[in-house]
């Protein structure tokens, strides 16, 4: 089957910043993304878990975008402006998609 090159950008960020991030992503003309809940984890700022949170203040979410390779820089610039001062991880990897016209 024919596949096409694309980039998968994963941004794990504090839940309170989700709306700001997705607004910035949309402003960079990236209209397709998926937001996933994150159950728990650990990093430089210590461990945390979704269990027992009494507010969204300590929770995390993951925003995933699959985009055309030429759009990566614009997306990363927009994302970095939001996540710069915050806890989180931004990663980019290559992937293949079946329907290139959708990205």
């Amino acid at each position: 089957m024919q596949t096409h090159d694309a980039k998968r950008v994963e941004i794990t960020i504090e839940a309170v910043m989700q709306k700001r991030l997705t607004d910035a992503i949309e402003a960079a003309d990236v209209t397709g993304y998926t937001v996933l809940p994150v159950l728990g984890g650990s990093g430089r700022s210590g461990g945390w878990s979704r269990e027992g949170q009494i507010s969204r203040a300590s929770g995390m979410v993951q925003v995933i975008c699959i985009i055309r390779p030429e759009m990566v820089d614009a997306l990363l610039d927009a994302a970095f402006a939001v996540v710069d001062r915050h806890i989180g991880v931004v990663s980019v990897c290559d992937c293949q998609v079946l329907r290139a016209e959708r990205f």
Partner: protein
Amino acid sequence: MDDILSLAANNLVSPIILSFALGVLAALARSDLSIPEAVAKGMSIYLLFAIGFKGGVSVADHGIDGTLGLSLLAGIILSFALPLIAFGLLQFMSKLSRLDAAAVAAHYGSISIVTFVAATSVLESSGIASEGHMVAVAAAMEAPAILSALWLVSRGSSGQRMDNDLMREILLNGSIVLLIGAFFIGWATGPAGLAEIESFIVAPFKGVLCLFLLDMGLVAGRGLREGGGVMRPGLLAFGVLMPVIGSVFGLGAGLLLGLSTGGVVLMMVLSASASYIAVPAAMRVALPEAKPSIYLTLSLGVTFPFNLTIGIPLYLAVAQFATGG
């Protein structure tokens, strides 16, 4: 003195406090006991709706007088002012950075609605009436402290910390909207409205509060287990001293306003309590460099249990002494 000790002892063996203690102990013992997130969220919605509705019904029942506006004004002033006192105290008692001290101070100017709910429950059990509009005062005291903290930080740097989105999120956060919305529904429908839903929002209230405090105990216990390492003696002392100082300001405001004994108690509780829901979320957006392990552990792991176990009976006894009630 005997009365205070007796009241404190009765409070300590109430189902509400024992449920909280069970949660703390289970978390410290690393039990896998947990309340599902959606259930906890549902219980908090129930409690906020019930307390807001009952406050509105009380206002409808007793009518409005000038103390409503003055109480709101007093609450807003207290919320603006208490972070400045907390900030000064922290700089004296701890070695926190300016940023961390301001973030902690914001929590102590804002309020804990669960402590407020627990205090109203103690008042009801003791047969002490309070002004229904104190619910609106609670809502009004949520946000000003955040502005005070951001002002404290901006004095030390030129960075822009507040934007319109954050302001909207603070003022329209779900707790405030639900509390005020239920208050107006209760006010509009009055005792007749309460009679229609009484079996839902009055009878099960304490049972739901017990389960919610069990969850709060679990969260507080986990916070103490994981964040206890950052607690230095100066910070721990602040976590106990600041609520007492805040309650004195609340006492003064309540007496100046001529509130009832119950109203004075609630004003003291609001001034003494520290936020752990609305303010941490605002701090994560506005001051992400401040350490949540410090401000959450202090407000949730130290001040909240103190207020729940010792603070509320203490404030009640002091208010009864001061008002002669």
